[in-house]
């Protein structure tokens, strides 16, 4: 433990203060041109984070083993790419970012344990990680107790706002309301069949969707949930055929997704005639489902790989150069990529790595270089962002056919929808 991180701390024992003074004078002898660029560590780090004159340590905390590895791999790749790019540009406040990667192993207590390790032992200045809501809920008390900073990338059900988390994905209303309004307007939809995997995100999302549908004078003709990993959907497909909804609204996740879309196609439901809107299938999932099985479906989310703007072209090119030319990029991967950039911008605005100052600087922070386009952090720690509708193509990509004119305001505690 080097004490020069905290040279003014009067709580330090006498000998440590002496060592600190010695280290300070040692750094004073370093070449001036290095120091000129970097504000002194003592100024930018008053809370004992792992920041040296040349380096700052952050954490990456995702599952790279276990069931969730399928989903979280893209986020890890995006965060590493962002960190490498920032380092190539000279780092943050003149310091290179060093990351320590921990594996949450798809196990929520493991996430909590690793989060504590990153914050307490490694003194990580920020952590980029978690994917499922369950893993976020598991680490939340630790981030709040240790006053850490977590950048969470996944679109999720909302109903949460922590001073220690920046939510870079969309919360439920942003994703759901724009999508429903779009099918109502464009497709003249009047009736909906709601489907989901049986856990908090699909259930909360469908609750919001049902309220919105009913408030706008439309109808829900069926609602069904399936255990995670369910692989047989023939019965519900028959129910859908019987009730003939204008729109199938599907929030099915994981391996079940593959089974659902394959069986839908095999049952003769032609997605070019039957409107299907999903909020859970990104380009990543389509790789497992097979583009030919889902072509014609619509997805409502904030990012698609095919998004046509300069930021995104550069991002896709850099991502594929780094991780392979065949790799695809989904909504969450892009949101994960924003994490390190938002953190860098906030640190530089604050002129400090201290979590309290970074948090303060994050409010109303703008990022114009995001692949999805302009984003801004709302005081509730979620992002203002546009919602887009994508039409699935047989080659596994989406055509972006609509985007909201304005940025959608994040509203994690929507009144009237609970």
């Amino acid at each position, binding site marked *: 433990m080097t004490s020069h991180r905290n040279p003014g701390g009067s709580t330090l024992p006498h000998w440590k203060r002496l060592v600190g003074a010695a280290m300070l004078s040692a750094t004073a002898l370093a070449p001036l041109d290095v120091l000129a660029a970097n504000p002194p560590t003592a100024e930018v780090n008053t809370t004992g984070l792992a920041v040296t004159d040349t380096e700052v340590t952050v954490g990456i905390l995702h599952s790279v083993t276990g069931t969730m590895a399928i989903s979280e791999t893209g986020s890890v790749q995006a965060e590493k790419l962002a960190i490498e790019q920032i380092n190539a540009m000279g780092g943050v406040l003149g310091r290179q970012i060093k990351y320590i990667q921990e594996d949450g192993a798809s196990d929520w207590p493991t996430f909590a344990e690793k989060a504590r390790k990153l914050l307490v032992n490694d003194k990580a200045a920020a952590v980029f990680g978690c994917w499922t809501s369950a893993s976020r809920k598991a680490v939340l008390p630790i981030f709040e107790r240790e006053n850490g900073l977590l950048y969470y990338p996944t679109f999720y059900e909302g109903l949460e706002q922590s001073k220690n988390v920046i939510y870079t994905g969309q919360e439920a209303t942003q994703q759901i309301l724009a999508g429903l309004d779009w099918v109502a307007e464009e497709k003249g939809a009047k009736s909906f069949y709601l489907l989901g995997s049986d856990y908090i995100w699909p259930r909360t999302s469908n609750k919001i969707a049902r309220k919105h549908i009913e408030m706008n004078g439309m109808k829900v003709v069926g609602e069904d949930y399936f255990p995670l990993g369910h692989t047989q959907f023939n019965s519900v497909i*028959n129910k859908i055929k019987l009730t003939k909804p204008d729109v199938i609204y599907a929030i099915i996740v994981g391996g079940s997704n593959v089974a659902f879309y394959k069986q839908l196609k095999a049952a003769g439901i032609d997605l070019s005639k039957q409107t299907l809107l999903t909020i859970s299938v990104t380009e990543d999932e389509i790789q497992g489902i097979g583009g030919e099985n889902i072509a014609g479906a619509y997805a409502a989310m904030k990012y698609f790989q095919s998004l046509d703007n300069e930021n995104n072209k550069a991002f896709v090119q850099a991502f594929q150069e780094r991780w392979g030319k065949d790799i695809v990029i989904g909504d969450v991967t892009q949101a994960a990529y924003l994490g390190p950039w938002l953190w860098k911008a906030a640190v530089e605005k604050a002129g400090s790595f201290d979590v309290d100052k970074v948090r303060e600087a994050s409010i109303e922070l703008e990022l114009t270089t995001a692949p999805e386009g302009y984003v801004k952090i709302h005081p509730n720690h979620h992002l203002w962002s546009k919602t887009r509708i994508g039409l699935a193509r047989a080659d596994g990509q989406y055509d972006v056919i609509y985007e909201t004119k304005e940025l959608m305001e994040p509203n994690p505690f929507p009144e009237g929808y609970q």
Partner: protein
Amino acid sequence: MFDGYTASQLMSIFAMQGFAGLILFSVFLLMALGLAIIFGQMGVINMAHGEFMILGAYVTFLTSNFFQSNLPHFFGGYFFFAMAFAFLAAGALGYALEWVLIRHLYRRPLDTLLATWGVSMILQQVYRSVFGAREVGVVLPDWLMGSYQVTDMIDVPINGMFVMALTATITAAVFALMFRSTWGLQVRAVTQNRVMAGAAGINGKRVDRLTFALGCGIAGVAGSAFTMVGSTGPTAGQLYIVDTFLVVVFGGAQSLFGTIASAFAISQSQSTMEFFLSGSMAKVLTLLTVVGILLLRPQGLFVVKVRK
């Protein structure tokens, strides 16, 4: 819930629903057959059964890629080759596993449970390292994916028909092998009384190894077939393992007839309840019923009398 539908619409729905139940029955039976042979005839609890199925699925994936790039003209028929390769690959792995691990554990059935569970984790990680953590998309020939339209309302999924035909064929083959061949006679003899069978000149070790390989090979074929209806990823085998054990245990561990009857009972009740209730509730009720019946009849539906 049937207000406002004409009689013919309702008839079509019931027809399709019956069909959905039959497809589910075929799927359950196909995934349980391999396990029933291993568990029933050898008493080995093979927790890696799901991973053998996924091995079959990955073999199908590789075969599909090979045909696409090298033999595009024969792509329509690749699935039959894929199933054959899946059987050979899973069977060979089963043969090796029996020799390396299982044969040392025959007297310790609970240890086989732990050992094969370990094997399942090792295999999952191998798949993850070789094929990546993400699911792979298996491209299927077009003729397998569509549906056959009988009337306006009734669409028969072709892959469902395919699974049904496959299950019928494999079940018939297994029965022929078990009850009509010399080898089947030997298997049954070893199951009933290992010492006497040995005294009669039957090589018990060889029979064990081939039985285990056969069970694993059938799991491989099942996995290959399920690329049509499900996902192919490192942990996808876990999706099947619970249902598989449910079918085998409920049917009575040592009876192939029991496996068939239990697959039929579970699939029909589940598919009917799924139609009237939500998917999760249907699952809960199915499990509760099975638990209730097993409480009253711990040995399962069918029992084979065995001399101890």
